[in-house]
């Protein structure tokens, strides 16, 4: 059945757990192309290079009934007091989902949180903006 997807159909999963208060996510796929144009060619030609993926999300800084902070998983990856900084153990597994009932269209990947910001403003809800950079290939890409 035909369907137009909206924010109602979207969700963000952190290590397989749906985050409750996500207000937006975005995902971008990039491909570096290597030029193979040679003398005598009339048009430029390219060959595929390295692929990369990145994205961002906005989450409300929200404390659930069990005391957990919804955005805390993301923030703690780059805002922490550890002396070792960010290591390979800080890779996170994210799934960006657009669902039509049981029909789930996912982009799943491992990524590093590359930036996180949070603030408080008078009269506004406190939210966290995080950016991520994938590492390795996508584990699931079922958008089509």
């Amino acid at each position, binding site marked *: 059945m035909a369907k137009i997807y909206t924010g109602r159909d979207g969700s963000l999963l952190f290590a397989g757990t749906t985050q409750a208060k996500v207000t937006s996510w975005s995902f971008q796929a990039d491909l570096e192309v290597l030029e193979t144009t040679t003398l005598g060619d009339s048009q430029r030609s390219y060959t595929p290079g390295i692929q990369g993926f990145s994205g961002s999300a906005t989450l409300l800084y929200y404390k659930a009934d069990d005391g957990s902070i919804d955005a805390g998983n993301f923030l703690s990856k780059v805002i922490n007091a550890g002396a070792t900084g960010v290591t390979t153990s800080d890779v996170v597994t994210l799934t960006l989902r657009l669902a039509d009932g049981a029909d789930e269209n996912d982009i799943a990947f491992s990524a590093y949180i590359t930036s996180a910001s949070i603030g408080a403003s008078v*009269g506004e*809800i406190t939210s966290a903006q995080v950016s991520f950079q994938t590492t390795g290939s996508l584990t699931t890409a079922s958008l089509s």
Partner: protein
Amino acid sequence: MSVYLGSYGNVYLKRKSAQGEKASVVNPADVNASRKRFSFDFESGFLVSGDQVEITSTNGATLAFVTSAGWLDATVQSSGKWYINVDELGGIRLYSNFSAALEGNVSDAIALADIATDIPITVKIANTIPRMLGQCSAFELNTNREAVDTTALSDEFRSQYSTLMSGSGQFTAYWDYIDVTQPGVQEAPHYLLQLALRTEIGSEFSAQFFLKASGYTTGNDVDLVTDQLWYEIDGIITQAGVSFTPDAAVQVTADFVTTGPIRLKAKLATEDRLLQEQGFGMQLEQDPSALLLLDKDQ
């Protein structure tokens, strides 16, 4: 249930200053004891006739320009509160009550004394008594609660989270600058125009907007006659205007926004009665002759 008419609502204003006190100096030449007036450097509009001000010397010296007649204990001190009348030249006379300050008669002013040295002072508006806004024909108070959208992905209905509260409103009153029939009882509507021009200390005031005043009930239940319900706010005049047309009474209109909390208060019980949730008597730990003191109304 009953239908209430606006004719029994009223507004009480209390003068105040938002930006605290002003520092200045009273020079010997500023005091004219024979005319009972003195002055110090202040911007036009800083003080308005009828203000109750607290004058304090900042170097610990007594306020020697106010004679002993101006003090309750007849002893000149370093700080005191008086009502003032400000004349057209910026001269100030001190009075012991509000109505006399509005009338500004020299004979009623507190006697002053010449001084020999400068007295550094601070002055702040220190009114404590709310007065009914005279000839008020209408008032409006709106409360506004801001809501922030907290709708998240996957939600099917918008969710909102309440945040800050604010208020605004408007007074309308028939313009007059003095109440000659009951001087000192009501605040003249002209004060709203003066308040809007108080650039140096701000146009802040406290107000009580009565939805139901004492002495009025729509039904036969006389127990409700003394009930009072009112909003209590601190506000800032944002706009004041007066319009003159040949075929209508002159009216003053003042818009305001609230600052700080907005409280909706009620006084539904008989005055001077201590309420408790239990039905039994209140036990005192002290001996039987001990008294329970009540902070009762006058």
